[in-house]
């Protein structure tokens, strides 16, 4: 579904991603693991073309994304949930959802506000509240719901468990399982190995912008030295 092939991404002169290649297959949940500064967020931004890789190719359902504006990547069916949430603080919950609205797509479930409120019941009670009056967990749910309004077929979740209460983290894991059950393909970036193992089918580990491991969680468990070397436990 998504093939990333040898991309190099930079922030100014800083070389962040170094010849990174991986694949995401339809229907799976992939966890992108690595320490702070390993390049997880940059990987997601590179797929979205918010950071333009200087070399390499990214194909999504056969279409090359490199060089396209971000809105075309979104329209192609990739939903992006940024790490820092970036909800529109002056807009109400309903209005935030409206910004994400896109036409429905054939190959993927279509979402309405009511369906999303069923998944995120906390938001339903806060429809007319402004984004800035929501708690951290509610903001996290809103940013996911907003992206789902675009009916994506691939969802990129950047560190969904970061900075929210443990109870909410559990809810988040359940939500991701629900989305998978609906037929969505998901890629999450995580530092929390425990959370990743609970929701993902496969792990990709990066460090210094290079891929260090790509395989199942049982394989990863068979090589504790990889975990110790690249993940903070």
């Amino acid at each position, binding site marked *: 579904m998504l093939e990333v092939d040898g991309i190099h991404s930079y922030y*100014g002169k800083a070389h962040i991603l170094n010849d990174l290649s991986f694949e995401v297959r339809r229907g799976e949940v992939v966890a992108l693991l690595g320490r702070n500064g390993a390049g997880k967020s940059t990987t997601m931004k590179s797929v*979205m073309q*918010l950071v333009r890789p200087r070399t390499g190719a990214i194909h999504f359902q056969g279409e090359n994304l490199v060089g396209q*504006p*971000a*809105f075309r*990547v*979104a*329209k192609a069916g990739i939903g*992006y949930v*940024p790490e820092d949430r*970036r909800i*529109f*603080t*002056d*807009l109400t919950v309903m*209005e*935030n959802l*409206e*910004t*994400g*609205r*896109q036409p429905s797509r054939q190959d993927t479930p279509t979402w309405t506000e009511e369906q999303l409120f069923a998944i995120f019941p906390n938001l339903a009670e806060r429809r007319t509240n402004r984004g800035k009056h929501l708690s951290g967990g509610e903001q996290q749910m809103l940013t996911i719901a*907003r*992206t789902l309004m*675009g009916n994506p077929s691939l969802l990129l979740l950047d560190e969904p468990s970061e900075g929210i209460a443990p109870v909410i983290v559990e809810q988040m894991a359940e939500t991701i399982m629900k989305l998978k059950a609906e037929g969505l393909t998901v890629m999450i970036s995580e530092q929390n190995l425990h959370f990743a193992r609970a929701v993902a089918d496969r792990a990709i580990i990066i460090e210094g912008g290079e891929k260090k491991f790509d395989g199942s969680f049982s394989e990863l468990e068979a090589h504790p030295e990889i975990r110790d070397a690249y993940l903070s436990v």
Partner: protein
Amino acid sequence: MAFFFAQFLTGLANAAALFLVASGLSLIFGVTRIVNFAHGSFYMLGAFIGVTLMEILPGHVGFWGSILLTGLAVGLIGALVEMVVLRPIYRAPELFQLVATFGVILVIQDLALMVWGAEDRLGPRAPGLRGIWRIFGEPVLKYDIVLIAITPVILFALWYLISRTRLGVLVRAATQDREMVGALGVNQAWLFTGVFALGSALAGLGGALQLPKGGADLLMDFNIIGAVFVVVVIGGMGSLPGAFIASVIISVLNVFGVTYLPQSTLVLMFVVMAVVLIIRPYGLLGREEVAGEHGQVGAPETPIRPYPPAGQIAVAAFLGLLALLPLFADQFVLILMIDMVVFALFAASLHFILGSGGMVSFGHAAFFGGGAYAAALLVFHFDTPMELAFLFAPLAAGILALAIGWFCIRLTGVYFAMLTLAFSQLVWSLAYQWRDVTRGDDGLVNIWPAEWLSGTVPYYYFTLILGVGGIIFLRHVIHAPFGYALRAGRDSPRQAEATGIDVKRVQFGAFALAGAMAGLAGGIFVFSKGSVFPTELEIAASFDALIVVFLGGVKTLAGGVVGAGFMTLVEDWLTRLEYWRLLLGLVIIAVVIIAPEGIVGSFRTLWARIRHKEDAA
């Protein structure tokens, strides 16, 4: 009492056009973060296009149809400007965008001159609304009543569009975080174009709606922009109801001012603004701008270094050449050189706060003209000796800068720019309207230097020593600890404060110093010309300096000086052509898009590239 009420109604009617233009400016700023200086030009275009259409289309339908068609036409022109000029430079620093919109002003001025000629057009009366109605016995124009009725409708329509439609939701979202809106699948490029077109259309509508009360002329663009900025600043940037309230306040005040204080109509507006800003620094309904809120990240500034020995020798050789110039150059060249040095010092003083301080001032002419006027007033009214009067130029400009700076320094970015512009307009309106003292637009004449400086050659040396001395002094300050503190405050105010720098105080000092230096340039200027007019205080004068700094290159120390030399020469040559504004405007726009680093910056980059290639080879 009835008279008061009638006056109030006239003020309300006058608010209509002002509100339309201001709301358009506010809307465009809210989403694109661009302060569109060409907004007054769209207003002017609206008036001219409206007049032309009304001449063609007859009757009720023709009149109102013309107004709507004008809005449409100006909206399309706005969309075109956005796509051609602004789209390539959304990521550029604020100053570049401003300079580009100033280029648009020049282009539109000359295009309007080409199409409609230099003569003023009187607006046609609205059919069926020619006379007056009596309200409590007082006459009120029928058309005024219609305008009063229309304005709230437009306010409501805009409010509905922004707060109740999907387009409005997207616009508000883009105001906060454009990139995220794009990542959600919205083509922001078209969203921006749409907003810009809508804002322009509002300005065009304003221009057409005011026709029966006024007309169309080529000065409308600059004449309204001062008032519009005042309205937007008082109301709060990006707030539509704020723009409405402020338009009403300013217009009503203006009507009463004309009746009771006819000498102070222009000043009144700025006094109100100053009062509002003391109480609410971000306007009545505006909200505080948090630095970095919109995620504008630029490339880090390269550190500036003193010139290497080769550069120092080159500068010394150039100065030597200037010193020897009277030996072989004729009088015309010397006068041109005096102009150039004066302009270079003026530009260098602006560059000092802009480049090193990061404070984009739109009203720097207040200090240049203020210094010139201070000296000229002393000579004119008290026969003060030239030497003493001359000293007062930088002194008075410095004190003026302290006063204006006290208000402005508290603000940053666009608010700072708008406020400096408004204050310079205040100084201008004083010079223009306080005829007893300043003789208004007749100017102050016969302001000649002392006997020993009366020849061109002595005055040339006088200019050279003070002008070049001033520029070298400013350069020196940039390399002194004060300059380091100033630059630290520009690059990271919070971090600078955490290391113990009182950023605001450093900026205040720099602002005053820059004002004094601009005043020094103004002092040299007034005695070289023998006269001073309010034009030296106009917005256009402030913009000349901005353009010069920009052309030379903001990030280079020599930028202001090189830009001033370039501009003086080019203007000397260009102004002989009939449509020089058009050409200059196009050059400015081209430079913004093609060589945004300015002359010095571009050469430096080119040089670095050549050297890099040699290293690689």
